[in-house]
């Protein structure tokens, strides 16, 4: 592998960085160039061509230094963060935080999340549970029995990462192995280009979801049906549930829409149902498509989750239940 440290160091010249800081930047940028070089070789470039192309990432000699000069550490060395009081004193910071929080709650009243606890195990991937609660001063969550809904996430305390998302493997094993929840559902994030001969093409949010999401939220389609379990498997049929607003906006609430085929990123999807207005998860979704994930594939930690507690089960009991599953999984890893 070429040594990238010299060209990077040349570009950092004049910044007067601390030795350890400079070493970290060189290490990080060198790894990026290693990856780029490897990809370029795989694409068929010669070694010499790949080096030249990879070095173009650093641009001309002054660009990196100029950009890095815009990065300014706070004068006292502290990181700026939510909760910092700033020059206006403690109430200025409090006012700012309150303003930000209220704005978010007003904009997204259906999905305000309160962190209630995080597991602190020394293994790579653990369960973290948050109770989903409503803004006290706003309308209630549009789901059945919202106190029983929990937002699910994983945390990696070993790496000091509080939120890492949930992997396929963990999501499905939680879903199958838990004893504390009536149901669990998981969803990703994603947009797609919707094209349909009858309406203007546009970008929509069409996150993939497990077929369990409607049941967990306690909702039913206003028209048609839910995603079927068989459609929520790798290779399952491409079906789509349209959001209520999208249905009204694009198809003027046409009740004959069921069975209609539209395209997402060029792939055909059959409309099988219309979501109720109350389907406020995943946030900003215009439509739902099946997650159809491979439960045995670990992949990246990209899922969000929500679970409905069984009657009488506490958050602590649920947390212990998921901890038990995580410990078993990570002691006996069979994932790909």
């Amino acid at each position: 592998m070429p040594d990238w440290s010299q060209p990077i160091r040349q570009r950092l010249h004049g910044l007067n960085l601390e030795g350890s800081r400079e070493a970290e930047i060189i290490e990080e940028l060198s790894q990026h160039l290693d990856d780029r070089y490897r990809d370029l070789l795989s694409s068929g470039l010669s070694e010499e061509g790949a080096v030249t192309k990879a070095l173009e990432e650093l641009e001309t000699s002054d660009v990196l230094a100029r950009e890095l000069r815009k990065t300014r550490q706070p004068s006292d060395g502290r990181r700026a963060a939510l909760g910092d009081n700033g020059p206006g004193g403690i109430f200025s910071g409090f006012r700012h935080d309150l303003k930000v929080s209220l704005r978010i709650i007003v904009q997204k009243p259906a999905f305000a999340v309160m962190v209630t606890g995080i597991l602190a195990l020394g293994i790579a991937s653990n369960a973290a549970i948050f109770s989903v609660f409503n803004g006290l001063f706003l309308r209630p969550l549009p789901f059945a029995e919202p106190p029983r809904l929990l937002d699910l996430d994983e945390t990696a305390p070993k790496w000091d990462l509080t939120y890492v998302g949930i992997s396929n493997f963990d999501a499905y094993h939680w879903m199958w192995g838990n004893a504390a929840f009536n149901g669990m559902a998981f969803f990703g994030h994603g947009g797609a280009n919707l094209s349909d001969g009858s309406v203007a093409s546009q970008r929509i949010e069409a996150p993939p979801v497990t077929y369990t999401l409607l049941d967990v939220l306690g909702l039913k389609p206003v028209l048609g049906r839910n995603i079927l379990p068989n459609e929520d498997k790798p290779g399952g049929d491409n079906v789509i549930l349209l959001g209520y607003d999208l249905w009204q906006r694009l198809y003027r609430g046409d009740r004959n829409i069921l069975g209609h085929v539209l395209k997402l990123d060029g792939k055909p999807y059959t409309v099988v149902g219309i979501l109720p207005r109350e389907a406020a998860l995943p946030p900003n979704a215009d439509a739902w498509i099946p997650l159809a994930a491979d439960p045995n594939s670990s992949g990246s930690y990209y899922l969000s989750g929500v679970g409905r507690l069984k009657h009488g089960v506490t958050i602590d009991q649920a947390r212990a239940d998921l901890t038990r599953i995580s410990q078993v999984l990570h002691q006996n890893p069979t994932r790909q």
Partner: protein
Amino acid sequence: MSEQSIQRDLKKGSAELLILSLLQAGPRHGYEISKLIEARSRGAVSFRVASLYPLLYRLEDRGLLQGRWVEKTGQRRRRYYRLTGAGRKILIQRRLGWLAFVEAIHHITGDEYA
């Protein structure tokens, strides 16, 4: 609009939003972020090392991201970036602002509103 001008305008106005959005699902390292931006924009938007990492460091300084070196067995350590709580809040604001902007432009240019 040419690809170059799309690149320039998008990068100027939305680089922060792009990076925060990509970290919403979980921690990623710099190369992964750059590949995702290029892949998901189908090559229309790309960030080189000289602009990507200074931007990551700025977002980290503002408390919106947190970078951590992560060591895995048999691999070199890598620096992963994750969203902080403040970053998640700013992401929501930026996303809403972006959607409002796009909608406003659409109202002006879209045929169905003519």
